[in-house]
């Protein structure tokens, strides 16, 4: 198997006048996980749809295990698994039948289809629900079944487009556990997500995209080093107090002030918090609120681009989203 499992080279895609991808390049080494991180409309789904042969790029080249997705899409389909943003399962079939459907369509021998289905149901903790219609399933169960369906033909390369969006925290943790097991088994994975926490937990490398362009890439540790691992937010009663505090706190971490609110990216949260409290106390600056938290995608974007990761109507919306509604 080649060292590089997935490669994208200068991918460009426009929908009418909207430039969804403006020339993005990345690669994923065999057996590793790449997290494609970005807000809604950044171009994540478009990139996945091109790599999985669902969409043609206007320019650029994409390969999976060395096979050109535009030139030989049929070969690519035999080696990839895809689970999209919405669970693509047939609600009127049982879990077992859904897996059998995919097994037959990927031309596994009959016995193997059955055995593989049972194995996946077991692994995704769906054995008890195997003969229930999928329309009775919870959101988490649907996603697990969808992921199982993507794995029936045992693809060496897997694409997951926002696998946990819309799930409750329990469902999310469950799905993460399953994905981690897959990766331990040697599957190469490209995962898109809006959640920094998710990319952090699952991905070896992270590519941050915004407006169809790559704005940062590296390991989670590298991105955090660039960003500061923790965020401290302090609110004051007046703008003057916030400004005074900003100059006082500047030695502790990088400080942004927005009116009465003050934000700091710091490397070591607990000790920075302690220093902050001491410094404010020494100057008799009394905060109204004070929060210590993990950085979010918004913080990444604020620090990388200077704008928040706001929702935008463009790109992915134009690409795919409007014909499907989440359930």
């Amino acid at each position, binding site marked *: *198997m*080649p*060292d*590089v499992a997935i*490669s994208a*080279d*200068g991918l460009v895609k426009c929908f009418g006048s909207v430039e969804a991808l403006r020339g993005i*390049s*990345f*690669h994923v080494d065999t057996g590793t996980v790449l997290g494609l991180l970005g807000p809604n409309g950044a171009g994540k789904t478009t990139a996945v*749809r091109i790599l*999985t*042969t*669902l*969409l043609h790029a206007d320019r650029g080249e994409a*390969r999976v*295990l*060395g*096979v050109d997705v535009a030139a030989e899409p*049929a*070969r690519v*389909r*035999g*080696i*990839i698994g*895809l689970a*999209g*943003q*919405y*669970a*693509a*399962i*047939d*609600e*009127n*079939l049982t879990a077992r*039948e859904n897996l059998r*459907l*995919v097994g*037959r*369509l*990927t*031309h596994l021998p009959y016995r193997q289809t059955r055995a593989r289905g049972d194995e996946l149901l077991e692994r995704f903790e769906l054995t008890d629900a195997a003969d229930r*219609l999928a329309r009775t399933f919870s959101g988490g169960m649907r996603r697990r079944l969808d992921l199982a*369906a*993507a794995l029936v*033909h045992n693809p060496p390369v897997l694409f997951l487009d926002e696998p946990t969006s819309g799930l409750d925290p329990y469902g999310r943790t469950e799905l993460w556990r399953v994905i981690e097991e897959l990766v331990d088994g040697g599957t190469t994975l490209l995962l898109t997500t809006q959640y920094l926490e998710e990319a952090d937990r699952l991905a070896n490398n992270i*590519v941050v995209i915004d407006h169809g362009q790559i704005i940062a*890439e590296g390991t989670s540790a590298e991105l955090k080093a660039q960003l500061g691992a923790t965020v401290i937010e302090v609110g004051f009663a007046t703008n003057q107090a916030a400004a005074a505090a900003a100059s006082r706190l500047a030695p502790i971490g990088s400080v942004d002030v927005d009116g009465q609110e003050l934000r700091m990216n710091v490397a070591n949260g607990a000790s920075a918090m302690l220093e902050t409290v001491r410094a404010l106390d020494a100057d008799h600056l009394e905060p109204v609120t004070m929060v210590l938290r993990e950085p979010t995608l918004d913080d990444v974007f604020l620090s990388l681009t200077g704008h928040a990761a706001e929702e935008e109507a463009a790109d992915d919306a134009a*690409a*795919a989203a*409007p*014909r*499907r*509604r989440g359930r």
Partner: protein
Amino acid sequence: MSAATVAAPAAPPRPRTHAVADAVTVAWRNVLTVRRNPRLLVFATVQPIVFVLMFRYVFGGAIKVPGVPYVDFLMPGVFVQTVTFGSLQTGIGLADDLQKGLIDRFRSLPMARSAVLVGRTLADLLRNVFVVLLMCAMGFLVGWSVHTNVIAMIAGLGLVLAFAYSLSWIFAIVGLSSPDSETAQAASFPVLAPLVFASSAFVPVNTMPGWLQAFARNQPVSVVVNAVRALTLGGPTSSAVLKAIAWIVAIVAVCAPLAVARYRRVV
């Protein structure tokens, strides 16, 4: 990360095409779906029964057709009308699959490109076989009689089914072009209603105003109804049947390639 050079891989095998097997698999899935979905099952069974009873007893007394009992004139019209409206299901089903992301899954699998559409239309054909047999039984119960012979009647029913199959391809295109099943349904009805009602299905065309007659005489629903009538009431059949076959072949020849092209490009 710039352009990554990729070594020539241990080439994944070039897939064989499995067009027939894949279509049968998709058809199996669609038949199961109808069985599991009470709404579809009701649509497939109750509606044909209601139509036969309604036209027989509500309109049957009001409409007089010279030379034949109205029920014998009516039944071919009810057959064609029912399968024509039923062909909407092809579009509704595809729009639904598209909306739920199932079409994306199918398109990402190493299966034949034609299979989703062929499987869908085959399943709908099967449903129509069931519907037509049910209507036959109902028809016989309310006094329908075939004036020719069993072979001509079977040929007539075959024509009804072939026509329904050709219409499925029209609505496959509609379904693949609609954002959801409600839109597919709403977009189809204004086309279907004039085809079914401005036709010879329920009343003789010569009772209509002159400007409508030219359309009503030659449009496919009338042509197929006339052919089935010829096959069940007797009289000259060959020209009516050939015209019907020409319509059916033309619709499939034009719409099936368009539908498959639409499926390939759908986003």
